[in-house]
């Protein structure tokens, strides 16, 4: 802690973005957030996989779940996110087959165990979950599985950061880069951000001491007016990352424009199945499409995930929107910024 206070002493006011939801939660849970000096503000970024998923995607998932011949296999966090026609949870209440799984492999297994049904895996998440999806597709291909599909919704982290920064006047002074994504990407992946946008990037793990160390490095850079990549999580993250995992992603997926919640379509920020694997795309198989994105009325998740709005400034926060009755994905996901604020900070403001 001393390192952060020392580095921040006399420095200007700064806003540091923790990109990913795991950091948002860890910073709150460990109390690190409560230790920030007054001139250092931590803001959350677009790194919660559920929160950035567009409503159009969710509606397509619900449409698939409503089909009698389909089992939707999904990570648990997605189940309660409300879309236009309710959530997957409410679809399940009406008889839809929605299975919560913990890895993409389980979806392949589910397809094998249910040869008479089609299993559609909701493939969402960043570079942490993408390799598992790629492996699942390759496995399904290897055993010529006919009833396994994915609804492609994976996101690529860096183009989203670029989209945030290229909007011009953005009050982000530096990035706390997520350890688990960086294991795959490698620390060097952040060089373009540093060069082009002159924002320091520090790769950080999730241990309190490591987060404090990383924040200290970031504050020091901002205070000194420099911008470079630093790696505070060298035990797990190398310069070059995990090339084998990236090759597997590249074998199965090609970069494609994709819709982000409230951020619109961002070029090359998503992943489409390459030609040889396109038969696994549930959209083509079942004739569903991703409709246009929209936000639940009054919900400002779009601004929250871009670090433009603190959850407490949303008029619905803790009034109409809470973890038991969530309006937007940021309140649903265990890694959502609104949920984290509600859980770890709300009562301090006197409910």
């Amino acid at each position, binding site marked *: *802690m001393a390192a952060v206070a020392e580095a921040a002493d006399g420095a200007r006011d700064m806003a540091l973005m923790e990109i990913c939801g795991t950091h948002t939660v860890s910073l709150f849970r460990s*109390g690190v*957030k409560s*230790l920030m000096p007054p001139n250092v503000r931590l803001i959350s970024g677009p790194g919660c*996989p559920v929160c950035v998923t567009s409503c159009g995607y969710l509606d397509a998932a619900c449409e698939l779940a409503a089909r009698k011949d389909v089992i939707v296999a999904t990570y*648990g966090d997605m189940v309660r996110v409300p879309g236009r026609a309710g959530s997957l949870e409410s679809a399940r209440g009406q008889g839809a087959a929605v299975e919560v799984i913990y890895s993409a492999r389980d979806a392949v*297994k589910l397809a094998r165990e249910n040869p008479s049904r089609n299993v559609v895996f909701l493939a969402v998440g960043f570079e942490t979950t993408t390799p598992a999806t790629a492996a699942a597709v390759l496995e399904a291909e290897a055993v010529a599985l006919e009833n396994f599909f994915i609804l492609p919704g994976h996101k690529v982290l860096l183009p989203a950061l670029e989209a945030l920064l290229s909007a011009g006047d953005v009050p982000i002074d530096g990035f706390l880069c997520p350890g688990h994504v960086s294991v795959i990407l490698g620390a060097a992946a952040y060089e373009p951000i540093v060069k082009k946008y002159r924002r320091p990037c520090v790769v950080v793990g999730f241990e309190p001491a490591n987060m404090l160390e990383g924040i200290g490095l970031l504050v020091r850079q901002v205070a000194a007016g420099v911008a470079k990549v630093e790696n505070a999580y060298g035990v797990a993250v190398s310069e070059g990352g995990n090339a084998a995992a990236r090759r597997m992603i590249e074998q199965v997926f090609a970069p494609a424009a994709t819709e982000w919640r409230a951020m619109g379509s961002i070029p090359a920020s998503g992943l489409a199945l390459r030609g040889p694997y396109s038969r696994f795309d549930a959209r083509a198989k079942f004739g569903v499409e991703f409709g246009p994105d929209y936000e639940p009325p009054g919900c400002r998740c779009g601004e929250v995930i871009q670090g433009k709005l603190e959850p407490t400034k949303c008029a619905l926060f803790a009034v109409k929107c809470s973890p038991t009755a969530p309006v937007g994905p940021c309140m649903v996901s*265990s890694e959502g910024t609104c949920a984290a604020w509600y859980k770890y900070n*709300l009562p301090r403001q006197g409910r």
Partner: protein
Amino acid sequence: MPQSPDSSDQRPADRVVLAHGGGGELTRRLLAERIIPKLANDLLAPLADSAVIDAPPGKLCMTTDAFVVQPLEFAGGDIGRLAVCGTVNDLVVMGAKPLALSLALVLEEGLGLDLLDRVMDSIAAAAAEAGVVIATGDTKVVERRGADGMTVTTAGIGSLPADMPPDATTIAAGDAVIVSGLLAEHGLAVMSARKGLGIRTTLASDVAPLGGLVEAMLASGGRVKFMRDPTRGGLAGLLADLSEQLARNIELDEQALPISPAARHASELLGLDPLTIANEGKVVAVVAASDAEKVLAACRAHPLGAAAAIVGRIGETSDWPLVELLTCAGGRRIVQRPYGEELPRIC
């Protein structure tokens, strides 16, 4: 891995069928061969419609709990042990001495009889360990998928000494919060036994009857003002309730929390807060500040309390009572009760 009710390759004769619940010969045999002999005791023996129990002087405590758990068997326990210990511990933390339990089984058609045998053995063993008898019971069979293989409901009565239950109204600022053992072990063991979670762990449930431990704590002579077992909702849920009930803040020291490295690691992998994970075989006590070390020592001297620790203290009264955690990193954060089932995160 323990089997789910329909995964092992048994012949139909080795499974529960609907006719087992029909009240005829199959029912008689199921009870006479597989259930009653394991529970044998004087109160049950007459097999009357109700058990007749000598009433002790003073007050009685009564409680009931329904148990559903998947999988039915997990490292360190099973649904039977859970059902006995859960009800016994609800009595014990009131300061009561358990006298008798009832046992209602709802079996799903297709349940393996060998699994039923194991669960019955485990019920008998846990009851013996807790020094309590199953005085009465009932068994029903439902169609496949009607229940999760089996559900077990127990009720219990216990006799309450005159100076019990502990009086929470005497709780004052500075009183110590003691946890009797490692947190989150049970919840994580069950979660990791669930199919598909894909975490490998050495964690085992530590579900156990707490009579002896609580007796030792009370016998230490320290003023114990409150006891409860932190099951569903974890320590977070229990303390959030208590702080609301007392209208007092409660402060916890993260450093002092008894959490094993394996549990810490598993909760990190799953993105879960160990404070909100279910426990079994644990008691949380609030003890007068000056007696805290005495009660703690008594706790630690008992085999089930070896990892006991003073984890926090009761604070001042407040209109907005809060449970706050002083973190290892030196920060503070609020501890709330979990909102529902905490789901493992995506990445």
